[in-house]
């Protein structure tokens, strides 16, 4: 299951699983996590999982996007000359990034990193 399986429009409860802490929790609570995950194909629930691979992958893409956005004055992250490795520390500082998140979501879904 990939995080790119966006919730559909049926009447469902969407669960966004923050996998990193859940993976740690899993070691001593395997039964509990299994019970939860067993419901992933049930009619009323929709699971979105932020896997480790997804996280590192998307951070790379977000960094690119942030650069792109700065050039187009879309994201106010301040210093353009900041070391690229530091982007991950600054890109969510401004709380208006919701629009950008959405753009990222759509562009990744289309298989492209071009911002809409």
């Amino acid at each position: 299951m990939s995080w790119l399986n966006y919730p559909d429009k049926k009447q469902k409860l969407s669960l966004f699983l923050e996998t990193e802490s859940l993976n740690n929790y899993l070691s001593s609570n395997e039964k509990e996590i299994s019970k939860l995950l067993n419901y992933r194909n049930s009619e009323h629930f929709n699971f979105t999982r932020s896997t480790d691979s997804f996280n590192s992958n998307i951070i790379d893409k977000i960094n690119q996007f942030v650069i792109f956005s700065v050039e187009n004055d879309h994201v106010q992250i301040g210093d353009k000359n900041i070391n690229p490795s530091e982007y991950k520390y600054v890109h969510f500082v401004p709380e208006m990034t919701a629009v950008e998140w959405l753009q990222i979501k759509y562009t990744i879904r289309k298989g492209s990193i071009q911002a809409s």
Partner: protein
Amino acid sequence: MVADKIYDKERLNSSELNSILALFIHRTFILYQIYQKNAFVFVTQNRRILENREWLEKKLGKLNIMTVQESMRYMDLYAKHELKCYAGPNHLLNKDYWYWNSFRTKIPHYHVPERENEGKVHILEGFASRFKFLLLALDEIGMQQHFPKDRDIMIPYHFNYFLSLVTGIFDNLAIETKSKYNISFDGDNIPSRISLSTKSGKYFLKEVKKKNAILKTHIDSYGNFIELINIMRQISIHREGFRDMAYKDSIGISFFLEIKEQEQVVVLIKACGDEPSEYDKFSRWGIFDDEFFIFLEPYRFVIAVANQLVIFCDHYLELMGFTKFVDSLPDRDQYRSELQSFSESRLGF
């Protein structure tokens, strides 16, 4: 800013960063209505995020950040709100049967022989049906808490009924005890004296001690609990009632009962073992003291009560000599495996 507050530092490691990143993606899905309205949960065991969830919701709006346990309970209420009772991932039961199985798995020592329709109804059959209604009332309060519809009237309605049912359950146990041990005492013709309460059931309990001292010790060890429920029922059914209050903040309106004037209730809740909850301002039994008011959150309270009641009642029946119902079934009995599966797979309380 958000990350600063959550982790109390400017530079995050990749794990910390990912947790905040996930939170913002979740928020985007909410803002752009990728999720159904009010039908989303952010499931995490990240202590920092959970400890700051109230602050996060004030800052970013409703996020529904929950632990795995809380999420499963929420899923169960969501499905029931949609009129579906899940016994397992792809296994739905009708409401009556779901609550019956819930009761049977919680009180394994309930072991009353089946009877023909015309047979006399056993007092513990009344106990079983009251317990089933109590579990239903608990869920109804939970649904009103999370998916409100006429909440201001429906929560007090179910809350008052819940309290009456608990006292009814206590009375059923007392009546069965009197009957099993042929207990008689002066005034045993007055129903209110056949009671587990130390006040009204003083003479009855004296006789219980003679017949089954361990059972009497068990009742005594739950004295505060029994007293708490009896007092709350008195307040809700016979006296002034609880004052309900709607509390509005940036993420919506919440519903509470105000119990500052009912000091005895507060004291007894603490005596029942209430303690601070891990991530919220409300205690495990649902109390929040904000200096001007003392709030009681009904859903937390009824869960705490039901948890104690389950332990109390099952052990009570065991001490009365009842054996586990499932032990009477053959190893490969279908209902036996159904109860086992229900116990392991159901999501809710």
